[in-house]
């Protein structure tokens, strides 16, 4: 369907995209991820024919975007980051303009407009000026304009940016629905969006592709060691006695709280167990602890979240920097830092859309790695 071959783009000596290579099959929803300035928008603009690549070729259904731009452009629907709307037009006249511009057959124009209006929930706003629409409706109108000609390939540049959570859900549902009939390439820096929508993701950093695969597959593939966090009703000493002889796993205590006599609560220990291989040891763990009479209050498999994969892949430089920095520090201080960060991570067990949180988790990840290494 879409083939991007060795595509590079150079802007005034600055490198935008460097030798990008990927293909997309019909019916795929592909998430295009990367930090700001990674080259997502540039790549999308090259696919849609808004920019010409400095080198390399892009073909859609075997037709080159460069040589036969017009026939390719009629197959593509494109929604730029800011929807390309004319503030002085009404919703209806805008859609009519786009339909005519995009070669919708003249007798179908009216039908398509009403179809788009009802599909994107723009009813009752046909006569309203674009200027007066809210951000969410503008986004919908932009989307309507990009699918009015029923394109084979839909390219969406951050379709949910700047929307409120409800609108994000609506737009996502819509994209999922569109994905049934169209091939969709969407860029975003909201990671859960990718796992929610896409069956494949591409991560790009500094203009180069760093990862290509399905979001589900990454969680386990990137974490090369099996990790489990548990909370056990026991004292730290008891646990150590039981688990130290077990050589398969490495044990780190995250938090140990001593029981208070007044509230009659027992001692609990939270710890992170890292297996030497990627084998699942949870069952074994359960029998060991139950054999020792120590009840497990919580057990959770630690997957590398998308945020962590993303950060791991896109911040290699900073990671090595911090590694060398940490290596010079006292091991004791290192451990304290690790424990702090680990509790931080514990406080937010489910890493979600929050960007801030993801950075936190990411730094915890990179630090805990170095922590383990220096141990």
């Amino acid at each position, binding site marked *: 369907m879409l083939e991007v071959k060795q595509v590079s783009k150079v802007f005034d000596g600055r490198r935008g995209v460097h030798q990008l290579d990927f293909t997309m099959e019909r019916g795929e929803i592909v998430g295009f991820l990367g930090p700001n300035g990674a080259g997502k928008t540039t790549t999308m603009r090259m696919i*849609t*024919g*808004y*920019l010409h690549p400095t080198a390399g070729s892009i073909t859609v259904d075997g037709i080159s975007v460069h040589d036969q731009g017009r026939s390719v452009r009629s197959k593509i629907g*494109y929604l730029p980051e800011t929807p390309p*709307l004319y503030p*002085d*037009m009404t919703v209806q006249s805008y859609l009519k303009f786009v339909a005519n*511009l995009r*070669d919708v057959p003249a007798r179908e124009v009216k039908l398509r407009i009403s179809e788009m209006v009802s599909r994107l929930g723009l009813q009752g706003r046909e006569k309203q000026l674009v200027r007066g629409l809210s951000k969410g409706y503008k986004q919908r109108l932009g989307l309507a304009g990009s699918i009015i000609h029923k394109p084979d390939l839909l390219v969406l540049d951050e379709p949910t940016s700047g929307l409120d959570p409800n609108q994000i859900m609506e737009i996502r549902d819509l994209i999922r629905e569109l994905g049934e009939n169209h091939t969709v390439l969407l860029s975003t820096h909201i990671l859960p969006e990718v796992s929610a929508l896409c069956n494949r993701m591409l991560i790009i950093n500094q203009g180069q592709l760093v990862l290509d695969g399905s979001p589900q597959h990454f969680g386990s593939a990137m974490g090369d060691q099996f990790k489990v966090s548990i909370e056990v009703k026991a004292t730290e000493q008891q646990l150590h006695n039981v688990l130290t002889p077990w050589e398969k796993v490495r044990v780190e205590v995250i938090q140990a709280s001593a029981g208070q006599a007044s509230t009659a609560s027992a001692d609990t220990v939270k710890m992170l167990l890292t297996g030497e291989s990627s084998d699942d040891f949870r069952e074994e763990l359960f029998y060991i602890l139950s054999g020792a009479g120590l009840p497990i209050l919580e057990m959770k498999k630690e997957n590398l979240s998308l945020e962590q994969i993303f950060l791991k892949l896109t911040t290699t430089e900073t990671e090595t920097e911090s590694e060398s920095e940490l290596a010079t520090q006292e091991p004791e201080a290192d451990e304290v830092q690790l424990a702090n960060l680990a509790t931080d991570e514990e406080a937010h067990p489910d890493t979600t859309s929050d960007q801030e949180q993801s950075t936190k988790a990411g730094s915890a990840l990179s630090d805990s790695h170095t922590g383990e290494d220096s141990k």
Partner: protein
Amino acid sequence: MRRMMAVCNKELQAYFLSPTSYFAFAVYVLMTSLLFYSSFVYYQPSIVDYRLVLGDTLSMLLFVVPLLTMRLVAEEFRQGTDELLLTSPARVTEIIFGKYLASLAILVALILCSLVYPFIMSFFGELDLTSVWLSALGLFFLGGSMMAIGLFASTLSQHQMVSAVAGFIILLVLWMLDSFAGNSGSALQQWLDPFALTNRFDSFTKGVLSGPDVLYYVTLSGVFLLLSIQIVERKRWR
């Protein structure tokens, strides 16, 4: 063709909705009528001739045309709607011609406004109608090439004011080309003279429709439209 008409329609809508075009029309009508008053009503010439007031109409075009064309392409760049146009199946040629066509429609409206003056004059004496109609046609050709120049200026920047000033300067230079080389019949002047914007217009007002004059204006428009197309197309190669 349909895409071109779509762009043209959109631009016409924009003309009707934008305060700038009303302002430009108001300035044009106000100034030409003032000049008409001073040169016909106040001065009371002994003959009735449209040419007496035509010169003033012409000089007003110099100010009004950049105001009317500055928005055409610059605004697309500023709003980011060029991304819609350039990723649609439309050719850049269709987009530019659509916009040009809309500006020509506005020009016709301007010329119709200024036909009021010969109409008034006709009450005071016999007008040479051939000269009036040919003057109007000449205005269309001259204005048309000015619009093309303004459109070209509009592709140069994403700021309307910059476009307007650039358009005005290009127009002014072309307008005054014959007086740059001094008034003696120097070689430079003889060489520049045929390219001056208004020189060719005189034969229209005399009631002469000559091929070279028409060709001059059509070519001038064509050259600037081509340049505009090239500049917009170049955006893909940034």
